[in-house]
C-alpha cells in the first residue's frame, strides 16, 4: 500500500495536498456545523442589533446617502470577514499546534509548505464565506438599499484571504494561546472598531485617516460600501488588500518553513 505523492503535476499536487490539509477542518465543520455557524454569527448579529437597529434611528444620513442600516451592513460584513477568517484559521491552528499536537502530524507528512499554508488558510475563507453569506442574506431581507454585486464579492474574498493567512501566520508564531488573545486584543479588536466599519473614515482627522487607510480593514469596508452604494470599484483598495493577502501568505509560509519544534 506504499504511496508516493511526489509524481503528480505540481499544480495538481499542490491543490490535492491543500485539500488534504483542509479535509480535517471540513470534517470538524461537518461534526460541529451548528455550533460553528452560531458562534460566527453571534458577534455580527449583536453589531446589527446595536448599530443597525439601535443607533440607526438616531443617525441622519446626508441627503441621497441611503439609510444608516444600508451604510453599516457592509461594515458589519467586513467585521464578520475579519473575525471569522482570522479566528477560524488562527485559533484552530494554534490549538492543533500547542494543545493537540496534531499539527506535528501535518508537519511530518510529505506535504509541501505551500500546501500547508494555503490549506490552513482555506479553513478561514470557507468559514468566512458561510458566515458572511448568511449575513448577506439577512441584510438583503432587512433593507432594499443593500444590493450586492461582483465588486462587493471581490472585496469580500480578498478580505477573507488576507485575514485567513494573517490567522495562519499568527497561529504558527504563537507559542501560547495567550499570544493569540494578545494579538486579537491589540490588532484585530482595534481594527474592528476603527477601520470605517461603523462610520465613514473620511470624517476622521487627517492624521487619523493616514493611520486608518494604512490598515487593510479600512479598504475592505470602504470597497464593500462603495460597491453596495454605487457599484463603484475601488481598485486601489482591492489592490491594497491583494498585496496584503500576498504578504500575509508569504509570512505564514515562511513561519511554517522555519518552525522548530
Amino acid at each position, binding site marked *: 500500500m506504499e504511496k508516493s505523492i511526489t509524481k503528480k503535476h505540481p499544480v495538481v499536487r499542490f491543490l490535492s495536498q491543500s485539500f488534504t490539509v483542509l479535509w*480535517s477542518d471540513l470534517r470538524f465543520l461537518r461534526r460541529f456545523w451548528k455550533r460553528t455557524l452560531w458562534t460566527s454569527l453571534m458577534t455580527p448579529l449583536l453589531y446589527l442589533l446595536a448599530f443597525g437597529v439601535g443607533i440607526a434611528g438616531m443617525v441622519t444620513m446626508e441627503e441621497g446617502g441611503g439609510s444608516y442600516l444600508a451604510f453599516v451592513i457592509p461594515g458589519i460584513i467586513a467585521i464578520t470577514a475579519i473575525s471569522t477568517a482570522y479566528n477560524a484559521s488562527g485559533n484552530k491552528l494554534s490549538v492543533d499546534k500547542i494543545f493537540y499536537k496534531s499539527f506535528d502530524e501535518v508537519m*511530518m507528512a510529505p506535504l*509541501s509548505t505551500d500546501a500547508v499554508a494555503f490549506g490552513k488558510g482555506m479553513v478561514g475563507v470557507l468559514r468566512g464565506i458561510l458566515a458572511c453569506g448568511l449575513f448577506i442574506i439577512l441584510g438583503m431581507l432587512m433593507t432594499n438599499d443593500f444590493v450586492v454585486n461582483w465588486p462587493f464579492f471581490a472585496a469580500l474574498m480578498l478580505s477573507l484571504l488576507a485575514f485567513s493567512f494573517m490567522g495562519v501566520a499568527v497561529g504558527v508564531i504563537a507559542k501560547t494561546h495567550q499570544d493569540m488573545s494578545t494579538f486579537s486584543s491589540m490588532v484585530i479588536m482595534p481594527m474592528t472598531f476603527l477601520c470605517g466599519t461603523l462610520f465613514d473614515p473620511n470624517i476622521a482627522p487627517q492624521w487619523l485617516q493616514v493611520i486608518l487607510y494604512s490598515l487593510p480593514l479600512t479598504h475592505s469596508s470602504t470597497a464593500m460600501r462603495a460597491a453596495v452604494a454605487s457599484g463603484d470599484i475601488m481598485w486601489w483598495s482591492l489592490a491594497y488588500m491583494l498585496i496584503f493577502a500576498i504578504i500575509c501568505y508569504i509570512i505564514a509560509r515562511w513561519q511554517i518553513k522555519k518552525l522548530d519544534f
Partner: protein
Amino acid sequence: MNLQLKPVIEIKGLTKRFGKFTAVDNIDMTVNECEIFGFLGPNGAGKSTALRIMTTLSKPTEGQVLISGYDVLKNPLAVKEQIGVVQQVVSFDRDLSLWDNMEMHARMHGFRGREAKEAVRKSLEYAGLLDFANVLSNDLSGGMRRIAQIVRALMHSPKIIFLDEPTTSLDAQTRRKIWSRIRLMREQGSTVILTTHYIEEAEALCDRVAIIHKGKIIAVGTPLELREQVGLWTVEYAAIGSDTEYKHFATEAQAKIFGVSLPDSKHVLKIRPSNLEDVFIEFTGTHVSEPPSGGKSLS
C-alpha cells in the same frame, strides 16, 4: 536473525542547542536496515530531541542527518515519504473521531477515496479498535490512543519507523502487545528506531542500543556487547546499614568467588546477570530513571 548492514540512518556531528543549553552534543551514529535500534537514557538526556531532528520536526544546530540517503534539511519531503512516527505525546485532533484522525493520516500520505477508507479499516481492525471508530479521539483511553497512534504511523508502510517512548504509562499487557507489533514491523522489512527509559524494553526489543546521557552517546552496541563491557555478572552486596554496592564480573564463577571472599562486615544480597541499568550506572554514575543534574527536561 539476519542483520543486513546497509545504513539507512547516518548521523554525523549532530548538535542541537536551545540558547546556552546543549540538548544533543556532537552525536555520530549509524542505523542499519531492518534493525531495531534503541536510544536508552533518562528523561532530558536528548533522546526525543535527536528523534525530532531525524523526523524533520526540529532543525539541527550543527551536523548532518541522512535518512535513506536524503538530508533532513535539504530534502525534507523525501525524508517524510520514508518515515512513520509515533510521538511521545498523543497527537490526535481531539475534536475529530478516531476514524477521521486515521483517514486524515491516510490522505496526507497519498491515499484517496475508497483506498483511504480501506487502509483505515484494516488498521483499526488490526488494533481491535473498529468498534470505537466513531468515538471522539478525546474520549478514548490512553492505551487505545497509543495503539491507534502506532497503527496510524504504520498505515502507509514506512521504511523507517520512529517510536518515541512507545510504551510509557501503559499497562503490562498493552506493552507486550506493542512489543510484538514492533518485532513484526522489523520482520516485514522496516527499520525501527525507538527511545525508551525502560531497561527491560531496550533489552527485550533492541538489536543495538545507544546509551545517551546529557546529549552525548556514551556507548553503542548490542545489549550483550554492552553488558560484556562492564561484565556479564553482577554481585549486589552491602554492609549493614549502608547503601548497596555493585561489582561486575565476566563469569558467574568469578562473581561467586567474590561473594564468598567478602569480609564478615559485608554480605551478598544477590548474584545475577548484569543488565543495561548496570551498564548505564557504570558509564554515567546515575540511574536511567534519574534525570541528569543541571539539565533541562525535554521529554
